[in-house]
């Protein structure tokens, strides 16, 4: 999220807490005149939230659902849909509070927010986020952030496809949201230590993608490979679904990146342009890389490249100019192709749908390149190395990447081990061979 957004944050929270009075008062008195919300910014943020929700359902659900074998397609859709439902509730219960409110203890606040926003109780209808003339209702900001909190854990599903219990999956999503995502979101966007350090992460390169990708890597290592991995034919059963999914991810991503301006302004516009350019560049880069190396440009390659570009530009959008976006996109296409195709083979882990290869690697790459290409001409909040000669930013970005990677890896590992002990992570071999749809959900596709 942009620094401008961070600046607003204090105010946002302030307004939030202030709103406590507001939202309690009415029972006794009449509403005070509501703050003068910016209807244009509010319109865009409502739209953005809807777009980001669309990224997960049906976007991500289809992107992943098309890549698995037919016997597991419904179970894969159930993961995205189930994650959406349970995370929504937990975000309302306490997640938003942990991530986006200030902890009374300033030191603790470096790592985790407060708990006063449990059940959003203090959030009155007139609670505001931002500073006039760009205030929006806090309800909108909370909802917008909720959609980020939904897709981040849902992305991890790409690494555990075809073999995790649905009960374990729901436990995993829940614990990971509260113990890994919410704190890290607080570090970078909620006033925590990386926020203080000045890390640049416009829309979530590290908070969302590196974070989810790292968790994905750990998850596939803990779970082990799918039965028959490397010997059986595990070709995607229907790439039409994956193309629909990737397309909706692309379209929805404008809510993700341009929406992170938390306003319908010039930053949002430039973020949108950068996103489009980087995504297209990455799709072409992956496509041509594959065309040269594997002799054919696959549809899966084109859409994978597009997603890689979307991931890599996420932290940079809003800080870089079109040229920077082009370079970041081209790099992401090639690097993620190598990660998904070679690195995976080399180390032999079964990151089934390449959640680490695309989101982890692409997120880290984007975070670092943001430090390189951030231009104060585009956003006064971001002084990068190449454009502004601020090499120091590179080091901050490295801390950002390192901090997120380490905390996430450790946290994810512990969470998985605990769940494994209590409910067990993996389905039985029979279930895995016969398919998750019929065994876990009692349904199959007859189409």
């Amino acid at each position, binding site marked *: 999220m942009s620094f401008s957004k961070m600046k607003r944050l204090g105010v946002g929270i302030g307004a939030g807490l202030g709103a406590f009075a507001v939202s309690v008062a009415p029972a006794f008195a009449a509403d005070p005149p509501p703050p003068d919300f910016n209807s244009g910014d509010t319109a865009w943020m409502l739209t953005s939230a809807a777009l980001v929700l669309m990224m997960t359902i049906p976007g991500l659900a289809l992107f992943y659902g098309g890549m698995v074998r037919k016997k597991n397609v419904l179970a894969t859709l159930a993961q995205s849909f189930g994650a959406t439902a349970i995370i929504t509730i937990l975000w309302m219960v306490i997640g938003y509070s942990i991530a986006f409110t200030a902890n009374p203890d300033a030191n603790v606040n470096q790592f985790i927010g407060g708990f006063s926003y449990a059940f959003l109780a203090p959030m009155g209808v007139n609670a505001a986020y931002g500073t006039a003339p760009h205030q929006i209702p806090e309800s909108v900001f909370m909802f917008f952030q909720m959609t980020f909190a939904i897709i981040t854990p849902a992305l991890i599903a790409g690494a555990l496809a075809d073999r995790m219990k649905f009960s374990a999956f729901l436990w995993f999503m829940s614990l990971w949201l509260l113990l890994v995502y919410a704190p890290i979101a607080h570090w970078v966007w909620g006033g925590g230590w990386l926020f203080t350090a000045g890390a640049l992460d416009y829309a979530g390169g590290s908070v969302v993608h590196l974070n989810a990708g790292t968790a994905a890597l750990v998850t596939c290592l803990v779970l082990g490979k799918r039965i028959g991995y490397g010997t059986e*034919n*595990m*070709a*995607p059963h229907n790439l039409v679904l994956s193309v629909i999914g990737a397309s909706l991810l692309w379209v929805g991503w404008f809510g993700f990146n341009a929406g992170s301006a938390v306003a319908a302004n010039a930053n949002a516009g430039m973020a949108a342009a950068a996103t489009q350019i980087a995504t297209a560049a990455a799709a072409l880069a992956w496509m041509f890389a594959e065309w040269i190396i*594997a002799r*054919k440009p*696959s549809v*899966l*390659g084109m859409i*994978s490249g597009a997603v890689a570009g979307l991931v890599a530009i996420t932290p940079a959008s809003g800080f870089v100019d079109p040229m920077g976006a082009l370079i970041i996109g081209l790099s992401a296409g090639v690097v993620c192709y190598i990660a*998904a*195709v*070679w690195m*995976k*083979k080399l180390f032999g882990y079964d990151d089934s749908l*390449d959640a680490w290869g695309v989101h982890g690697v692409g997120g880290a790459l984007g975070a670092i390149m943001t430090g390189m290409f951030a231009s104060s001409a585009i956003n006064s909040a971001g002084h990068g190395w190449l454009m502004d000669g601020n090499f120091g930013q590179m080091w901050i970005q490295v801390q950002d990447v390192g901090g997120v990677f380490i905390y996430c890896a450790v946290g994810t590992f512990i969470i998985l081990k605990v769940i494994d002990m209590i409910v067990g992570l993996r389905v039985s071999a029979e279930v895995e061979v016969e398919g998750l749809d019929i065994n876990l959900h009692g349904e199959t596709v007859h189409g």
Partner: protein
Amino acid sequence: MKLITAIIKPFKLDEVRESLSALGVQGMTVTEVKGYGRQKGHTEIYRGAEYAVSFLPKLKIEVAVKSEMADAVIEAITSKAKTGQIGDGKIFVTPLEQVVRIRTGETDGDAL
């Protein structure tokens, strides 16, 4: 009677069907199958994972005929389904002891 089973290339179906009708064969049953043989398949690659597709789409045509018609039918299928390329397929002839038309209960010759 004979049950004549032919494995052919999918796009040859219409030609074969017409030539059989011309012979007075009133019916046939077709099944989508996958064939393995001399004709080599393709390789699919998904993010570096290669899968050899050694089974190719074919159609299986089953025709029950009176014994005396068998040769004519085989001849017709062979001529129409032939492209000269590897993978044109095979014809199998098996004995057919009895045929019943479900609608009428007619049997054997009358049932065809």
